[in-house]
C-alpha cells in the first residue's frame, strides 16, 4: 500500500483541509494584531476565512464545535478569562458561508452524544442543498460531565487523563463510540430514505411522490430508535461526507466502519504507517476494503517564510499564554517548503491528505493558501484549479447508490 520508493512525482496529489476554531488553535492566538477577537461571532469573519481557504483551492474546511464552553482542562470546565470562550453553532456557520462560496467543502462538527440523529441528518442534508453538494460532517463524542448537565439526560463519571486506560473509562468510551456509530448509521439511512426519483409530480394521478420510493429506516439501537423516513429529500451528494478524529483503536474502528475520512495524529512517518495499517485492517475486517476511505493527518502549523520567525512566533505566543502549548497533533513550525516536505513524506507513509490546524488563523491560513499551496503546486502535488463541483467529487468519491433502491438504476 505505502510504497517506500521516494518518487514524489508518481504520488497522487494530496488533499488539503483546514480546521477552523476561533482565532486559531494556539490559546493566545486571539491576542495577535492580525486576529479579530471581537468579530468571532459575526458572519463576516467566518465568510472571510472560508473564502480565503477557497482561494487556496483547499478541499474543505472543518469547523470546531462543542456543547459547552472551551476549556484548557482535559475533561472539566476551567475558570480562565484569558482565552477565547463561546462559539456559534458550527452547522449554522457552514450554512451561512455556503451561499458565499462555490467549490470548497463545508464540514461542521456535530456532537453525537447529545444530539438527535434525525435533526442532524436533515441539517446536513440541507447544508448539502444550500451548498449544491459540498456538505460533510465531523462526528465527535463528549464524555464531559458539564456538557451532559446541559442536557440533564445522563451523567458521566469524573475522568482523569491518567485513567484513560482503566476498564471503567474504556467501557465508557466504547459505549460513546458505539452510540456515535449508531448515530452515523441513522443519519446515513435517513439520507437514503428518499430515493432520488421519489418526487414524481404526476398530475394525471395527483401524486406528488411515489410513496414506494420513500423508506422507513426502522433503526433500533440501545440509545435511540428512529422510524423515518426523513422529512428532507435525499441530498445532492446522496451521502454527504462523514468524518471523525481518532486517536486510538476504538475510534479507529469507528473511522473504518462508518466514515469517509478519518483524521489521525501521527507525529512521524512510522507512526503514520502504523495508524494507516491499523485503519486499513479494520476497514477490511468491516468488509469495506473496496470502498474509498481517506486517512488525513492532522497538524498544527506555524508557517512563515523564515523558519526562525515561525519558531519565535510560537514561543512568543507560549509566553503570552503562560504555558507551552501542546496538542494531540504534531506541531509544525517552519516555512512552506519544509511543510511541503513533511506532508509528502507522510503521504508516502500512507496518508491521503492533511487537515491543518492554523496556530493563528489570521496569519497561518493565508500562509497555507499563499505559501504552502503554491509550493505544493510547483511540485505537482496539489490541484491548480477545482476539478469538481461537489465535496465527494473533490475527494474522488463517486455518488453512491441508494441502499434502499430496489434495483440498480442504469
Amino acid at each position, binding site marked *: 500500500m505505502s510504497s517506500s520508493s521516494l518518487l514524489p512525482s508518481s504520488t497522487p496529489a494530496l488533499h488539503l483541509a483546514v480546521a477552523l476554531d476561533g482565532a486559531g488553535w494556539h490559546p*493566545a492566538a*486571539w*491576542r*495577535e*494584531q492580525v486576529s479579530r*477577537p471581537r468579530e468571532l461571532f*459575526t*458572519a463576516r469573519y467566518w465568510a472571510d476565512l472560508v473564502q480565503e481557504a477557497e482561494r487556496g483551492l483547499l478541499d474543505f474546511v472543518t469547523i470546531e464545535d462543542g*456543547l*459547552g*464552553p472551551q476549556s484548557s482542562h482535559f475533561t472539566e*470546565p476551567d475558570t480562565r*478569562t*484569558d*482565552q*477565547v*470562550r*463561546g*462559539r*456559534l*453553532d458550527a*452547522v*449554522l*456557520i457552514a*450554512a*451561512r458561508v*455556503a451561499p458565499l462560496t462555490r467549490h470548497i467543502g463545508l464540514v461542521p462538527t456535530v456532537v453525537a452524544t447529545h444530539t*438527535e440523529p*434525525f*435533526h442532524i441528518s*436533515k*441539517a446536513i*442534508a*440541507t*447544508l448539502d*442543498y*444550500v451548498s449544491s453538494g459540498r456538505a460533510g460532517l465531523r462526528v465527535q463524542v463528549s464524555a464531559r460531565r458539564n*456538557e451532559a*448537565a*446541559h*442536557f*440533564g*439526560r445522563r451523567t458521566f463519571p469524573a475522568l482523569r487523563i491518567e485513567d484513560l486506560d482503566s476498564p471503567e473509562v474504556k467501557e465508557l468510551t466504547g459505549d460513546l463510540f458505539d452510540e456515535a456509530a449508531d448515530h452515523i448509521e441513522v443519519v446515513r439511512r435517513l439520507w437514503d430514505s428518499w430515493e432520488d426519483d421519489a*418526487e414524481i*409530480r404526476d*398530475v394525471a394521478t*395527483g*401524486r*406528488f*411522490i*411515489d*410513496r414506494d420510493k420513500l423508506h422507513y429506516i426502522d433503526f433500533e439501537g440501545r440509545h*435511540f*430508535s*428512529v*422510524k*423515518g423516513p426523513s*422529512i*428532507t*429529500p435525499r441530498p445532492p451528494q446522496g451521502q454527504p461526507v462523514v468524518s471523525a478524529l481518532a486517536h486510538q483503536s476504538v475510534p479507529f474502528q469507528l473511522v473504518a466502519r462508518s466514515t469517509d475520512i478519518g483524521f489521525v495524529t501521527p507525529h512521524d512517518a512510522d507512526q503514520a504507517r502504523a495508524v494507516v495499517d491499523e485503519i486499513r485492517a479494520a476497514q477490511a475486517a468491516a468488509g469495506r476494503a473496496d470502498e474509498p476511505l481517506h486517512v488525513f493527518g492532522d497538524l498544527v502549523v506555524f508557517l512563515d517564510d523564515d523558519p526562525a520567525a515561525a519558531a519565535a512566533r510560537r514561543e512568543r505566543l507560549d509566553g503570552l499564554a503562560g504555558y507551552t502549548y501542546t496538542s494531540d497533533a504534531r506541531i509544525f513550525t517552519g516555512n512552506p517548503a519544509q511543510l511541503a516536505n513533511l506532508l509528502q513524506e507522510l503521504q508516502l507513509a500512507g496518508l491521503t491528505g492533511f487537515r491543518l490546524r492554523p496556530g493563528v488563523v489570521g496569519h497561518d491560513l493565508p500562509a497555507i493558501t499563499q505559501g504552502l499551496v503554491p509550493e505544493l503546486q510547483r511540485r505537482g502535488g496539489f490541484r491548480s484549479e477545482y476539478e469538481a463541483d461537489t465535496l465527494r467529487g473533490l475527494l474522488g468519491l463517486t455518488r453512491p447508490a441508494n441502499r434502499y433502491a430496489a434495483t440498480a438504476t442504469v
Partner: protein
Amino acid sequence: MPRKQIHLAAHFPGVNNTTVWSDPKAGSHVEFSSFAHFAQTAERAKFDFLFLAEGLRLREQGGEIYDLDVVGRPDTFTILTALAAVTERLGLTGTINSTFNEPYEVARQFASLDHLSDGRAAWNVVTSWDAFTGENFRRGGFLPQDERYSRAKEFLTTASELFDSWHGDEIVADRASGTFLRDAQAGAFVHQGQHFDISGQFNVPRSPQGRPVIFQAGDSDEGREFAASSADAIFSRYSALKEGQAFYTDVKGRLARHGRTPDQLLILPAATFVLGESDAEAAELAREVRRQQVSGATAIKHLEFVWNRDLSGYDPDGPLPDIDPDLGEHTIARGRAQVRMYRDPLATAREWRERAAANKWSIRDLVIETGNRQSFVGSPATVAETIDDFVQADAADGFILVPHITPGGLDVFADTVVPLLQERGVYRTEYEGSTLRDHLGLTEPSALEAGTRRVAS
C-alpha cells in the same frame, strides 16, 4: 388618530394542499434557489419577515405516506441561516418544536442564527406530544397531551434563561492585558423544574436581539394564554373580519393580566390571496386555484379527517356519506394538526350534510367551500383596501401571506399591492431599522429585566 401601520410577512408555501404543485409555474420546494427567490421578493417588498413551518414526521393516511400534497422540506435552522447570506434586513422566523428538542441546543441555534443574521431571528414555539412523531426521536412519545403546554412554557422559560445568561458586556478582548472575558462565569445558569433539570454555562454570547422574537400559533385557551404571557407575536388562523376582530379583542384583552400592553403582542393571521386585473378576473382565477388545490382524491382524504373512516369508495362528485363518523380514537390521518379542529365530528358531519344538500354541493364542492376559500381575492386595489380596512378595524396588526405557488407566488403581490399600500401611507417604503424587533416595533428585552428573570447564577 394616525392610521395603523401594516405589518406584512411571507410564509414559504407549505406541505399541504394550499400549495399548488401541479401548476406549470410551480418550482422546487427544496432547492435553495427557490428559498432565495422567495426571501428576496419579500425583502424587496420590505416585509417584516419570512416564516417557515415545520413537521417532524411525514404525514400518513390509511397507514400509508400521504402522497397528494407537496412532501419534503429542508431543516429550518439551516435554511434560515443560509438565507441570512442572501438578504440583509428580512426577519427569519422558524417554527421549532419544544417537545422533540432540548433547550440548550435550541437556544444555541437561535442565538447563532441571531448573530449570523445581525439580529433577525424569530422562533415560532410549537408543541406536540404524539407518539407518531416521537418515533423519530430519542425521547419518543413520552409526553402526556395535557403536559404539552407546561413543557412548552418551561422550555421557553429555560431557553430565555440561557439567552439572558450573557448580558452583552462580557467580551473584552483586550490584547494588552490578555483579558478575553470580563467574567469566567459568563453564561452560568441553573434551571430546576418539572421538565428540565439542567445547569452549567451557555456558550453563545448575547446576540444582537438579546433573544429571538417569540411567536406562538396555538389557538386553544391555553395557547392564547401562553401567547399573552410569553409571545411577541401570534400566528393566528383568523383572517376573516369578524373572527379576526373577536380573536384580536380576546387576546389583546389578556395582556394586562400579565403586566403587558397591547402593543407588546402583534396579531398576524395567515392569509391567502389571489390577484387579477379586475375583481371578476381574480374571482374566476381563485375558483380555478381552489379546484387545483382540492382534487377529487384530496376531497375524499379531507372528508376522512372528520369521518375517521376509509371513504375511498365514495365518489368525490357525489353526495356526502350517509354513515356517521367513527368516534373512536382518530386513526386514519396521522401527523396532522387539523384533525383536532373537529372536536365534535358528529355535529360537523351533520352540519356539512345540511350545507351540501342546501347548496347542491358534491363532496369536492363542500371541501372547497369549507376549507379553501382564499382570504383576499380581487384586483390589487381591492386587496390593498381590504387589508388596510382589516388592520384599521383591529382584525389584525398585519398578515402572514401564504402564496399558493412556489417560489414565485409572492412576486405579483410585491409588485402590485405593496405600492398601493405605500401610497395609502400605511406601509413602509424603506426599512427603518436593521433588526426584526425594529421592524415589528418591539423593544429589546433589557439586560436589567433579563437579570431579574434569571433563576440563579
